[in-house]
């Protein structure tokens, strides 16, 4: 039993690693992807041009403007005398939005420690607009909030001590986005590998006719299925270890959580994905079908994981899906392991959920594989 299982695993690993090109295809593209996405797929918005319509003409306007100008994301803060004038510029896409400081703002702030400014954004560029709005909010929050801190100290205060990490991000956009991206990429990139490897390998053997050769041997379908799952786990382990080194050593992302949780998460996640891959491979006959099948699940997994859009913004029924989406759990675990270093117990709980998902997909896929094998 074990002899046969090991034989199949060894055969799979040799197939993956013996050919130099196959070996390179396991290592080079994932690393390139990590580099490319880490530099390209940031959610930062740079080179922002924001119109300022200062109807207040008081000390606060100058102070706020200085703070915005100090942030590297804002390259231009052209002043416009009226909302109408700024509106024209916005229509021509010369500016991304406008910040309107109503008259008497400074006086009101001095009196009541709170006030209202208006931010008008270009809805056509919704993503950039939303992010810019967050930058601006961050810049004005200490002054605009109901906090009792006087204006001049608020500007120098920096992060509010009791604030959570989320707020940290807004204050240091340049660094934090990469820190946010890289742990996410570790999860997302290893998703594709484990899923594709398993889905394609069975289809490939079907096409070559070697699958029959193994099926007529005494090896049982369960042994064959496990023999297909385990190598994907090993490859995923190897790749994520490589990522771990790159992300921490090259990009300097801190590793605040436990390595046990990290590897536990990687194993459970890879098993969950390989299970889905094996599931797909039981249903298809050619590599092309397997590829399309894998793609059909990869995209929803990636898009509904909280990677691209926050889970909290999704309708409730999609949020339910993210509950069973292994990538959603994986991303939270990676965030926790790398950045938050949150309580071990909380992460262990998250990991348990991922393990349960992994058990479900692998068991279901082995059962299906067994039924479909003959």
């Amino acid at each position, binding site marked *: 039993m074990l*002899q*046969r299982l*090991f*034989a*199949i695993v*060894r*055969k799979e690993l*040799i*197939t993956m690693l*013996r*050919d130099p090109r*196959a070996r390179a295809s396991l290592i080079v593209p994932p690393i390139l992807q990590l580099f490319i996405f880490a530099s390209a797929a940031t959610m930062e918005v740079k080179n922002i041009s924001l119109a300022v319509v200062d109807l207040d003409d008081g000390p606060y306007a100058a102070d706020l403007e200085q703070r915005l100008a100090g942030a590297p994301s804002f390259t231009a803060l052209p002043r416009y005398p009226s909302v109408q004038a700024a509106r024209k510029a916005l229509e021509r896409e010369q500016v991304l939005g406008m910040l309107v400081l109503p008259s008497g703002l400074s006086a009101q702030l001095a009196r009541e420690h709170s006030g209202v400014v208006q931010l008008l954004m270009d809805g056509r560029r919704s993503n950039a607009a939303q992010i810019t709005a967050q930058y601006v909010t961050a810049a004005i929050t200490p002054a605009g909030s109901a906090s009792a801190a006087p204006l001049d100290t608020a500007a120098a205060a920096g992060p509010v001590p009791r604030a959570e990490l989320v707020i940290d991000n807004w204050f240091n956009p340049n660094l934090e986005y990469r820190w946010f991206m890289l742990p996410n990429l570790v999860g997302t990139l290893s998703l594709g590998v484990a899923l594709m490897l398993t889905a394609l390998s069975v289809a490939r053997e079907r096409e*070559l*006719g*070697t699958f*029959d*050769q*193994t*099926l*007529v*041997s*005494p*090896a*049982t379908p369960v042994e064959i299925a496990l023999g297909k799952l385990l190598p994907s786990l090993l490859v995923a382990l190897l790749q994520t270890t490589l990522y771990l080194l790159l992300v921490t050593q090259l990009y300097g992302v801190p590793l605040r959580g436990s390595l046990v949780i990290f590897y536990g998460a990687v194993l459970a996640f890879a098993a969950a994905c390989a299970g889905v891959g094996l599931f797909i491979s039981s249903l298809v006959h050619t590599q092309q079908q397997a590829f399309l099948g894998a793609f059909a699940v990869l995209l929803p997994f990636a898009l509904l994981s909280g990677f691209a859009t926050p889970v909290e913004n999704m309708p409730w029924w999609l949020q339910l899906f993210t509950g069973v989406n292994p990538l959603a759990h994986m991303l939270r675990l990676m965030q926790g392991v790398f950045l938050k270093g949150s309580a071990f117990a909380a992460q262990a709980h998250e990991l348990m959920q991922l393990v349960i998902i992994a058990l479900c997909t692998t068991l279901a896929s082995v059962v299906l594989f067994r039924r479909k094998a*003959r």
Partner: protein
Amino acid sequence: MVTAPEPAARVQALVKSFGATRALDGISASLPAGTILGLLGPDGSGKTTLIRLLAGLMTPTAGSVEVLGRRPDAEGGATQAEVGYMPQRFGLYEDLSVLDNLSLYADLRALPTPARQARFAQLLAFTGLAPFTARLAGALSGGMKQKLGLACALLGRPRLLLLDEPGVGVDPLSRRELWRMVNELLQQGVTVLWSTAYLEEAERCAHIWLLDAGRLLYAGAPQELSQRVAGRVFRRPVAAGTARRAADAELERPGVLDAVIQGASVRVVARAVPVAQFAPPAYQAVAPRLEDAYVELLGGARKGASALAQGWPSRAPERGSVLVRARGLTRRFGDFTAADRVSFEVRAGEIYGLLGPNGAGKSTTFRMLCGLLRPTAGEASVAGVNLLHAASQARARLGYMAQKFSLYGDLSVRQNLDYFADIYGLRREARRTRVNAMIDMFDLGPHLRDNAALLPLGYKQRLALACATLHAPAVLFLDEPTSGVDPLMRREFWHHIGALTTRGVAVVVTTHFMEEAEYCDRIGLIWRGRKIAEGTPDELKQRVRSSAHPEPTLEDAFIALIGSEAA
């Protein structure tokens, strides 16, 4: 032939290399116009490369190609209009209907619209596809696909027709149809090149080019080649059931070039005249055949006992005990019954052939027998173990070798052997001895580190046989094991298989090639999912013997039996 007409094609010192390998290595020959040329050779001998060079789809590495008086590589478009090319798996669009396929190829050939309807009607009548114009090409049988491919290749009224292995995957009935069509084309003055790995097809051609590993072994009339062994070919009738042993014994005699089984007799080719040792009445002189001369060209059959059988570790089972039992095997796919209550038994030391056209149900039956497919009804057992109840144990007793030598191409020879030793559960000492024995027996030593995919065809076949027999199975299942190999490789293979039967191994083989069927002790003829006839090759031939047909071949028997069933 009074004066030789201008040849339809001529090649001069033609070389085509792919990287370090030379697919064609200095070929010079000419193709006489208005005749049929058989391009004969095993898989990988360079047939397809030569055809593609003639079609102008490749340029030669060295040497020259001339087709219909022009150089296809220099002025491709000009000759392509007059050359019809049908690739091995003709590029039919399976999701388009028969008529759509024709229209598409007419568009590609820029056939003028007014001429089309008449040409389509002509070709559809010619190929007998007229009733099926609306059927999707993917739903056609293998033979009908080839006919449609032929129709598409004929659209432009070519003067030269290049057919790359049109007989592969086609049952004997359809193959006869194809030949009828080709003969009609020849009468219209078309020159035809028919490539094949099968001698029975090459024998029907006016000329043959015999390729071997990229070299031209022979160019000329097949009869002329056969005549080289004239007066040296004999038949020796033997008692039923002793043919295999008799053939082996003949081959060991000095002066014998080749000895094969032919029904209940042995066909012997002497190395040279005089042939006093093959005197009547024991030996009858018979007409030479292409295969006899082909074997001589290749240097004669390999002698020596089968090391595979000599090193066989397991005890021979009792002679006559039933090792394979199929009882009422039935498999339905939806409404379609692929196999319908097929029953038969194979005893120890017996070779049983499942013969039938493509799609007749022989593969379905075969796959149920080796546990690759679950029967809808009925049961199968191997070496007394039921495949349904104890699948793993039953499978441990069987060896399986598929048509395409389905080994792991990315693994080395050694890794393949180790893998199969492991999944068949061979332990330490047995594992080492068996693997080493296989390496010695099949002379795999020099190739141990090579990828299986890159082995020469003959070594692939040896490795496949080694992997299938490492665990000394009681039953061997072979799926068209020697299609596309040369006669020497086929002899070597069947020599081993024949020797294994002396160790009590039972063999089940599927084939639709008569050359393989001759090696069987008994044959079950499968048609439309049912077993319609069973018997020894001689018995089956006997059934259709008539005054009009005094010496029927197995193929004749096959066609007649199917015909009487259809009537």
